[in-house]
């Protein structure tokens, strides 16, 4: 004789404290144990891919801020790289370095959020989040200095960046580089060695490397499963081939390792930033773009817009959440014929069901926190 209780469906979300936005997880529970998990999304679907088909290539850059709004820089970067690939534009050296610096600052800021919110999901009542916000805030200050915005940055441009950094940027960044390693050490000792966090996250949501690859999981999740894969090293873009850094890899593929990998990546980001601040050359920040001319018979949309040649391009970068790719198809017109975002948040969720079935509700929340989704990017 076994005790069997009635299955019990619980909706986590769309309005729920820890679904990181308007994501909904429909769990079928047997007691506290999850026997089925179904993801319901689309609450933040803005049909960006359709909208982008009606706008010029340059007008589409702000959309990429609003997918992963916690890492707008990397969103911008992946998109402009795709357009550059389509058109064969080489940005100047200084622009590449600026892109590297901004991407790494963004990665640090985004991981701050990821780790803080993850600790919150573990039940730490706001304290880690507030501490992480302190550092993120400093980085946002740097962004504000560079481009005037803090969240939706719209900084990258096709062929370069929108503007050069002001002279006070480098000293401010250097000062921050001096503070952050100490903070990181503090976070590592407070969070990674925390008995309760270890108990809550170790051995939970394990993905083997084979599973991780099969489920197309990327970014810190893939690396936590032990696959040393980082597009910055594997397929260097911007100025990553000129800096020295390591890929942080976990060994057991559990929630705890994802957390460990993110913290280690923050250290590597600091390493890259220090080198980049030293090595940044002077020079132009924007490549000359081919002059566009209006074609007779076109719709009256931005006559001087860029018109990439017919073709298609896929550019991918390592965003804080994983492989962020833009697939653009051009028919030679001023707007993309097809604009597809390979968003890591969305695709990382593929493995969520695999990870959550069989664990308890509390674990599911922690696992969802470790995937680190941004609903703007999931739903696009």
């Amino acid at each position, binding site marked *: *004789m*076994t*005790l*069997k*209780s*009635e299955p019990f469906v619980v909706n986590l979300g769309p309005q729920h404290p820890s679904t990181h936005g308007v994501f909904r997880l429909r769990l079928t529970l047997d007691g506290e144990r999850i026997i089925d998990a179904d993801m319901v999304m689309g609450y933040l679907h803005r049909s960006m891919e359709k909208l982008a088909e009606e706008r010029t290539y340059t007008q589409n850059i702000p959309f990429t801020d609003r997918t992963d709004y916690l890492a707008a820089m990397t969103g911008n970067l992946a998109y402009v790289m795709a357009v550059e690939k389509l058109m064969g534009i080489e940005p100047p050296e200084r622009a590449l370095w600026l892109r590297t610096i901004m991407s790494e600052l963004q990665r640090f800021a985004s991981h701050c959020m990821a780790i803080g919110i993850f600790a919150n999901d573990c039940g730490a009542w706001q304290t880690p989040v507030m501490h992480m916000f302190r550092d993120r805030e400093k980085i946002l200050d740097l962004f504000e200095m560079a481009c005037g915005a803090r969240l939706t940055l719209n900084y990258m441009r096709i062929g370069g960046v929108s503007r050069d950094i002001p002279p006070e940027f480098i000293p401010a960044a250097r000062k921050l580089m001096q503070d952050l390693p100490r903070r990181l050490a503090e976070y590592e000792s407070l969070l990674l060695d925390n008995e309760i966090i270890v108990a809550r996250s170790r051995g939970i949501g394990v993905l083997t490397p084979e599973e991780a690859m099969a489920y197309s999981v990327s970014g810190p999740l893939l690396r936590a499963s032990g696959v040393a894969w980082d597009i910055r090293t594997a397929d260097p873009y911007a100025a990553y081939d000129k800096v020295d850094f390591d890929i942080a890899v976990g060994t057991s593929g559990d929630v705890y390792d994802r957390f460990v990998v993110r913290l280690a990546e923050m250290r590597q980001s600091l390493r890259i930033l220090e080198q980049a601040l030293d090595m940044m050359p002077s020079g132009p920040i924007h490549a000359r773009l081919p002059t566009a001319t209006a074609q007779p018979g076109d719709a009256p949309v931005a006559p001087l817009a860029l018109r990439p040649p017919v073709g298609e391009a896929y550019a991918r970068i390592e965003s804080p959440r994983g492989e962020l790719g833009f697939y653009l198809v051009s028919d030679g017109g001023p707007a993309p014929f097809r604009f597809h975002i390979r968003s890591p948040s969305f695709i990382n969720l593929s493995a969520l069901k695999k990870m959550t079935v069989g664990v308890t509700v509390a674990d599911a929340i922690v696992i969802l926190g470790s995937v680190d989704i941004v609903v703007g990017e999931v739903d696009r």
Partner: protein
Amino acid sequence: MDDTGTVIAFWLLAVITVGSALMIVAVRNLIHAVVFMMVSFVGIAGLYLTLSADFVAVTQVLLYVGAISVLMLFAIVLTPGGSRDNAETFLRLPALALTVLLGATLAYVAIDTDWSLADRGGFTDTASAIGDALLGKYVLPFEIASVLLLAAMIGAIVLVRPEASIEEAEE
């Protein structure tokens, strides 16, 4: 029943206890029935207090309100399938007969007994007296009861263990 306060308290508690006991069988919702049962238990605890049995009263609240009714709530919520109602049953008539019989017996006993009042004395500390009695004079029944409860507990655990782990244990 010497002073008016106690008399008032007695009647109040008696009404509460008996009234909620009636409601237990009257209400349709099982959870409500358990709630009334808790009220009834608290009433009984109050009755004990009027009898200067403070230890028993507190234990009544602790065990019956805090533990047994919670157990019943648990059982009701965890039982799948079965309707949660205090439904009608075909045993109504036999139950009625049995109740009448029981009531008659109790009434007979109550009327027949020679209720001589014992000398009440002052309000004494009953806890230590009960403790002495349980671990002194009545230690054997006390221990037998503990063994019985232990056996019941182990039996319950064995019953709800999934078969797989029993098979493993046997292997």
